[in-house]
Each structure stands twice: as C-alpha cells, then as structure tokens.
C-alpha cells in the first residue's frame, strides 16, 4: 500500500511540470444566480459555460490556451455576489469574470471590479450597469431601452399609435414604464393608459378594464413570472384580444410561461433575441449558423429548451475567447482593451455586438425580432 502511494506521488511529480510546460491555462471566473430567485437565468448560464468550456478544451483550446472555468453560485444575492467575486479574484486568481445574472448583483460588484482591474462581462440588462460606461464592465444582455425601441418602431410601422402599459411595481417594471414614456414621443406614440400591480397580485381585471375603456391599439405588459400569465388570462377574459394586441416583455421569453397561459397566450407578441426562432431565420442571416448550432447542442445535451439567458453567457464566453485568441495573453488589462477595441460585428445570440469606448453594450434595436406565440411555439413576425 505504502509502495503504491509512493509510486503514485512519484508519477504525479513527474507529470506536473510537463503539463504546465506544454499547456498554458487561463482562469476565468463566473458568479451566477444558479439557485435562488433568478435561477431561471443563472441555471442555463452555468450549463452553457460548462458546455462551451468542455467543447473548446476537448478541441485543444485556443492557441495553446486551455480554459479553466470556475463557477460559483451567488443565489441572486448582491452580498454573495461580492463575496464570490472577491474569492474568484484573490483566491483563485482569475483573469476575467463572466456574470452576474442580475442587475442589483452587478451594481454591487462594480466597485470591486474597478479596484482590482479585472474585466467583467455582465449578463444583465439594467441600464445603470453600462450607462455611464464603466471602464472594466461590459454587458451582453439587451437593455430595456433597446427592447422598447424595437417595440415602438414595430408599432409605428403598423400605425398602432395608441399604446397602454401595465407593469409590476418593481425595478424591472418601473424601468420599462420610464423608458416607454421617453421613447413613445420619438415614434409618435400616444401613451393613453398607465396601470401597475404588485408582483404577487392574483387578479388584474380592474386595471385592464381601465385600459380597455381607453381603446389602445397595443398593451405592453412589463413584468416577469406568474403575474404575466394572469395578465394574459384576464386580457382574454375581458375580450380585449379581439380589438387590441398584447405585447409582453423579453423577460417572459420562456415557453413554460406560455404553456401555463394556454389559450390566452395565443397571438401574444414579444420582442426577443434571435435564438428562440433560430431555425426560422433566413439562410442569409449571418447569425443563423452559430445560433442553430448552439441551440441544437444545448437542447440535445440538457434536454430542455434553449433560453435567451444561456445565450448571454454564450456571447460573453466567445467574446472573451476571441480576445484571448488575438492577444495571446492572460493579462487582464490587455484582454479588456482588446474586448473594447476589437469586438466589432461579433455575431452573438443576442445580436451583432460592436463595443467602443463609449458603448459597452454594443447592441442595437435591429438585433431584436418580434415573435408571436402560436400553437405551442414561437413564430417569427419581423
């Protein structure tokens, strides 16, 4: 037994120097809301990162670099996001950070990132994360202002200029309302009714009936989770689906939600990245090939529908790997400069990214599509 141990240690000692000499390793850290309130975001993000790392390493990495991906669960809690971030930087010595999943977590992490000078690719949509631009922080998710501009231009093209909004009284919903208020006049839209609800409310017919008497062409619903289902059901119950369109936010781009709504979900519109309808894109679309491959890989491996959230992690991962490939260094500062300077027309799942010193989100309204829920699946409209 003892002999065996000695032998094993000897072998290990022989192997290690070789391994490090032949293979350069870059450590990348991720802190995500794998469990907790935002697990529907963090879970596919984690799965995507693991899948991509494994795939890349099995192909021998990039330019001789192997990726070591260290993922921590921050439970969607800003305090834990900061603790895990500090651990990634000081203990694990990562050279770049992917995540977090939620805006409040990102805002808490920014001071640490700026102090330690490690680039962070956040998977969040909150405007304060990248407006104003923070030197070390990038984002790969579509913020409310771009999404609402997409909806506004869609409505303008169809001359549906009377608009109403019903939103949940929380950070996401209120931000949506504020953005719509600013964007609407630019597209000649008239905001005819504004209603809100609490995120745990169980009936929205009163608010919807107030909207109904104003006779808008379209009603935006800015919320996430179960109340969005209740809004769809109440909307149909009041017969509003006959004369106006319901438009949900990108926050409910989730098949489960629409399956719960059943019949009431039919014909509801929503803006989304192209990943959900990858197969329906025209073959000339430059994003299509990558989107279809990611979707197929993810769905066959994890046996669950792909989501836009995993897509944000996909985009962050590849932007970082591309920068690594071009610079051939794991120096955080040079990686950051490379990401900012040379992420030009990067074809991701969220859109075509072009970063610059004044734009760390890099997306435009045209990167989104409007999709409709029909017969149990998404249908591309525009």
């Amino acid at each position: 037994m003892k002999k065996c141990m000695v032998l094993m240690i000897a072998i290990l000692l022989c192997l290690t120097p070789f391994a490090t000499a032949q293979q350069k390793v870059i450590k990348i850290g991720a802190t995500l809301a794998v469990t907790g309130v935002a697990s529907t975001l963090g879970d596919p993000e984690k799965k995507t990162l693991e899948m991509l790392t494994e795939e890349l390493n099995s192909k021998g990495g990039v330019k001789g670099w192997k990726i070591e991906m260290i993922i921590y669960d921050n439970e969607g809690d800003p305090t834990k996001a900061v603790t895990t971030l500090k651990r990634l930087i000081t203990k694990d010595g990562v050279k770049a950070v992917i995540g977090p999943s939620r805006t409040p977590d990102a805002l808490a992490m920014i001071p640490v990132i700026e102090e330690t000078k490690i680039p962070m690719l956040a998977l969040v949509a909150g405007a304060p994360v990248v407006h104003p631009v923070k030197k070390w922080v990038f984002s790969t998710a579509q913020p409310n202002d771009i999404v609402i501009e997409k909806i506004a231009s869609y409505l303008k093209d169809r001359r549906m200029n009377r608009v109403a909004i019903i939103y949940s009284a929380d950070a996401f919903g209120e931000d949506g309302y504020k953005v719509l208020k600013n964007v609407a006049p630019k597209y000649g839209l008239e905001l005819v009714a504004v209603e809100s609800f609490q995120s745990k409310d169980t009936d929205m017919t009163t608010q919807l009936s107030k909207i109904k008497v104003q006779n808008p062409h379209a009603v935006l619903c800015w919320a996430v989770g179960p109340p969005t289902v209740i809004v769809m059901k109440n909307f149909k119950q009041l017969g509003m689906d006959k004369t106006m369109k319901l438009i949900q936010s990108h926050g409910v781009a989730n098949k489960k939600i629409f399956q719960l709504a059943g019949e009431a979900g039919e014909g509801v519109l929503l803006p989304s990245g192209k990943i959900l309808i990858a197969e329906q894109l025209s073959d000339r679309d430059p994003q299509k090939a990558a989107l279809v491959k990611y979707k197929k890989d993810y769905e066959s491996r994890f046996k669950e529908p792909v989501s836009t959230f995993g897509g944000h992690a996909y985009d962050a991962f590849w932007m970082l790997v591309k920068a690594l490939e071009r610079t051939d260094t794991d120096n955080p500062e040079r990686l950051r400069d490379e990401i900012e300077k040379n992420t030009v027309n990067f074809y991701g799942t969220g859109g075509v990214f072009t970063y610059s010193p004044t734009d760390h989100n890099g997306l435009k309204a045209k990167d989104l599509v409007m999709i409709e829920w029909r017969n149990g699946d998404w249908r591309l409209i525009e």
Partner: protein
Amino acid sequence: MFEIILQAILSGITVGSIYGLIGLGFNIIYNASYIINFAQGEFVMLGGMIAATTFNVFKINPIYTLIISTTIVTLIGALIERMAIQPVRHADVSVLVIITIGASIFIRGISMLIWGKDPYILPPFTSSEPIIIKNAAINPQSLWIIGTTIVVVIFLQFFFKKTITGKAMRAVADNKKAASLMGIKIERILLISFGFSGALGSIAGIIITPITLTTYDIGIIFGLKGFSAAILGGIGNSFGALIGGLLLGILECLAAALVSSGYKDAVAFLILLLVLFIKPSGILGKGLIEKV
C-alpha cells in the same frame, strides 16, 4: 366609468372570496386553541401544488386528485401538530404562534426543493369562457370559489355549534384545564384542528389555483390576506371571514379603479386599520372577555 366600477366589484368578489376561503382556515385552529396558524398560507400552497402535480404529471382524474391532495395536506397538518406543537403544548400561545411561523418557513423551503421556482396551474373546473354582465366579465371559476366558501361557512357554523367535537374544540380554547377535567382529550382536539385546517387549506388551494396559479412562495401573500380577512370579519367567526374577505377584496379593486393601482393595497389596509380602531374585535367579532 360605470363599466370600470362594475368590473372592480366583480373582480373584488373574486379575490375577496379567495381571501375569505383562506381566512376560514385560520378560524379552525383559533377556535380550538387561540393559536393563529401562520402556516395556513402554506397549506393552501401545498394543496395547489400537490393537486397540480398529481393532475399534470400523473394524469389522475380530478376527483382523485382532490382526494389525494387533501389527504396529504391533512396528514402534513397533523404531523406539524405532533412534531412541533405537541412537545411544547404547555407554552404560551405566543410561543406556539412563533412555532407556526417556523413551520411555514420550513414548508416553503422544502417545497422549493421539490417543485423548484416555476409556477404551476390547474385547468378550471368548468368552462373557461367568462360570464359577461354589461361589458364586465367574471370567471366561472370564481363562482366555484364563492359557492365552496358559502358551503364551508355553513358547515363550520354547524360543526362548532352542534357537533360534540366542535363544542369540545371551543371548550378547549376557552379553558384547557376545565375542558380536560370534563374528560376532553386536549391533545386529540389540537391534532384534529390542525388536520382539519390542513384539509380546508388544501381544498382552498385546489379551487383557487386555476385563477391564481401557484408557486412555492405564494403562501406568504395568501396567508397575509386570509389572515386580514379573518381579523376584519372577527376572528373565530366563520361568517365573519367571508364578509371580511369580500370587503377586503372589493376595497382593493375599487381603490385600484378609483384611486390608483399603485395604492390599492395601501388604501385597502388603511380602511382595515380604521375598522379595527373603531371595532377591535372585527365586524362580527364578539369582544373577548377576560376574567381576572
């Protein structure tokens, strides 16, 4: 305007009867022990969750679903009484109330592990076509809720006033020592009351899930609103819970219609506070006379 107010009242009746039905569950345990069971909302959640699972996953007939789910939640209610309340039954009522809060957090945590954070739903019992009254709509499922609430109220009135077990429960709440001297088994009464309110919570959960959906944490808000309904109507009084629930629901919806949807809870709870200032025992409650 008329249309909006009519719709607000109809919506208020829908949510109000939900609050009332949940509020009734609080009364049973209260009538047997003066304990406010803060895990009542979790019983409602469990009822909806178990029914949704048996119905959607195992494709079992709705009637069996109802029986299975109610049986399980009844047992859970009884189990909580055995494990958490019984060992410390001689403690002060306030201690026991805090234990029920602990139980509610425990149930919520376990449910999150079992069902995750996704919402679940049950199909409506009858048609999902709304009933239209002068341009305002009401969901047929609401009628089921109102009907069930009325039946339960009548049943509970009968149970507490006429049956031996019901009378024994009230006796135990009033004076444990005297009741036990009269030959009432206090442990059994407590056990029955927890099981009974578990069953009632489960039925409430099953009936309201087609309208509200259910998630692991929905018990918090259901518990809070049901409790408010019970207090507003006069705790311990079954008819009061129904009145309190309807009043609270209609106030909320009228506040959303006439003031602003952002202030609806604030307005409703302000009125609740005012009512309790004027009549602390609730609308139908009899003042508790404490003999020193």
